[in-house]
């Protein structure tokens, strides 16, 4: 019982982590986030379904195309819902990103349809039994891909010129600008990456779940809780917090029953934040005056 709950928890947790990484990348660069990350995730699943099932593309091509479109959607989010407000020092991007998410959800509702659809992935259904616990290929692939993407992000930011430039923006946007780093471009890249992560999560969740227009709403909210819990300033922290949240959620359900899942898991988030206000792995921001 605990074994299969752990497998479930790690799978879901890495998805929370991926969405939360999306919050992290944009927050790090611009101190703004796309609150409707759940919608970006939904778009990943809907695009993948449309290309692979409706248009009959091979799954890999469909997934790639879906990721490209998700990244483009990220650029749109930044252009329409963040930049106009953030550039004026207003916090209205908070509401604007939520609004754009609702627009995306409803557009999908009318174009994709209201009926939930299923995206079968035969390769993912293969399964094996490890130590008495039944594990399917997809359940192994999801945390693997999640962690790999987090690792890739870490490597990119430390070892490439663009990555280092982005880190410079994170440290001090004005100084970075003076050094000739294109700050708006870095922010755009961060938004594209952020929705790309969410889209990847959506594509991987699609075969596990059903594809429909509000599949990301609750998931996005949980991912935001995870991002805050991890301390939104640490990439690995956010990913770890995602894994922890997923595992704790599954274990509570398995050991105490589903009646307690939401109550206890979110209570734990509050307790954790009360004890560690900057999140489990975050650092206090120094405000220099």
């Amino acid at each position: 019982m605990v074994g299969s709950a752990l497998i479930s928890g790690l799978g879901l947790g890495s998805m929370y982590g991926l969405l939360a990484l999306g919050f992290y990348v944009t927050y790090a660069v611009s101190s703004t986030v796309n609150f409707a990350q759940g919608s970006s995730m939904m778009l990943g699943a809907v695009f993948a379904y449309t290309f692979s099932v409706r248009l009959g593309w091979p799954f890999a091509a469909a997934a790639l195309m879906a990721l490209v479109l998700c990244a483009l959607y990220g650029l749109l989010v930044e252009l329409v819902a963040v930049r106009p407000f953030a550039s004026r020092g207003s916090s209205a991007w908070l509401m604007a990103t939520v609004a754009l998410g609702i627009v995306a959800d409803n557009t999908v509702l009318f174009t994709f349809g209201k009926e939930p659809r299923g995206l079968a992935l035969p390769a993912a259904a293969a399964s094996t039994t490890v130590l008495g616990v039944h594990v399917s290929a997809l359940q192994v692939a999801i945390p693997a891909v999640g962690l790999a993407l987090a690792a890739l992000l870490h490597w990119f930011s430390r070892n490439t010129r663009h990555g280092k430039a982005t880190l410079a923006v994170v440290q001090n946007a004005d100084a970075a600008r003076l050094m000739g780093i294109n700050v708006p471009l870095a922010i755009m890249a961060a938004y594209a990456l952020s929705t790309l992560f969410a889209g990847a999560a959506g594509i991987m969740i699609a075969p596990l779940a059903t594809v429909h227009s509000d599949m990301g709403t609750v998931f996005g909210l949980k991912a935001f809780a995870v991002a805050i819990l991890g301390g939104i300033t640490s990439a690995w922290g956010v990913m770890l917090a995602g894994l922890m949240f997923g595992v704790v959620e599954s274990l509570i359900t398995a050991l105490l029953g589903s009646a307690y899942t939401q109550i206890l898991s979110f209570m734990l988030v509050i307790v954790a934040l009360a004890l560690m206000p900057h999140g489990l792995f975050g650092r206090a921001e120094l405000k220099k005056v």
Partner: protein
Amino acid sequence: MKRLLIILALAAALPAFAQEPIKIGLVTALSGQSARAGEALTRGLQVAIDEINAKGGVLKGRKLELVRRDDESVPAKGVIAARELWFKEKVAVLFGGLDSPVALAIVPLANENKLPFMDPWAAGTPITKNGAKDNYVFRVSAVDEIVDKAMLQYAQKTFNAKNCGMILVNNPWGESNEKGLRAALSEKGVKHAGIEKFEGNDIDVVPQLSRLKAAGADCLFLVGNVGPSSQVVKSLDRMGWMPPIVSHWGPAGGRFTELAGPSAKNVHFVQTYSFFGKQSAVGDKVLKALMAKYPDIKGPGDITPAVGVANAYDAMMLTALAIQNAGSTDGPKVRDGYYKIDRYDGLIKTYSKPFSPQQHDALNEHDYVWAQFIDNQIVPVGMKQ
């Protein structure tokens, strides 16, 4: 010439006035996730109305006419539509209630104004058992508390189940069935392996199911709409555990095979009718009429969901008898007209005194059939492999 034309027009209008049609209202979801079901209700009613009109209508030649409104599965919109149909369109009988919450919202309006309300779908127990002294609500459909008894009976008989676990969607429908299943179990003195709830948009139900498995469940009672039900089946697949699954009719609401994968066929769920297999004379007649009227229906597999068509057809036929018995379209008289129905050879069964002041539900546990999904089609259990 002009005068002649006016006289002719008046002459033409006169019999039409005398033979004013009787309006039958329908409030249901015509858009959204349940639109297919709303369309099925429409088709069942329309085929019955066409048949009645072809035989000369009711009350000495008055034709029936269907007026529909969309409730979008929202109770408030259902009530507004019901008001409009009753008070503005003056429908004699209102059909409605695909979703139990919508039906429950319309019930008080029916009883306060003494207007007959016929429910051909929503299964919530308190819709007909609403506690009103003067009850104007009738139903030709499944009823939660009776379905729950039937689920237990089926699990015991078919699977020799001794310790079933419940996996229920976390909403009022799941709650209503938890109550019903508990009552059915305690009536027979049978224990259960546990009661687990899951959210409609949960991706993974493995932890809940693991608990039931660890508690030794030898069968599952499933209550949830088609999406959530498919999450349960997929989670069972991932666990490599496939106990018998006895379900309410949620899976019938959509593309269950597509959503749940090949294991969808393991779910046996309740239905009130199937157009597959050998049909009665009424069944043949209705099937033929449906195929003639709707070009997209080429065989029994295209009538989805079949329960909507069948329930609506029988409910309309019974309603025509009630109006005939009443001798008018006056609410209280039509209500008593339902009580006076003696015998009707219907699609689902032969009804014998289906309604009485104590009994507003025409169907019971003997009228249910058990079905499964094979290749995206609902067929009676065991008919196809």
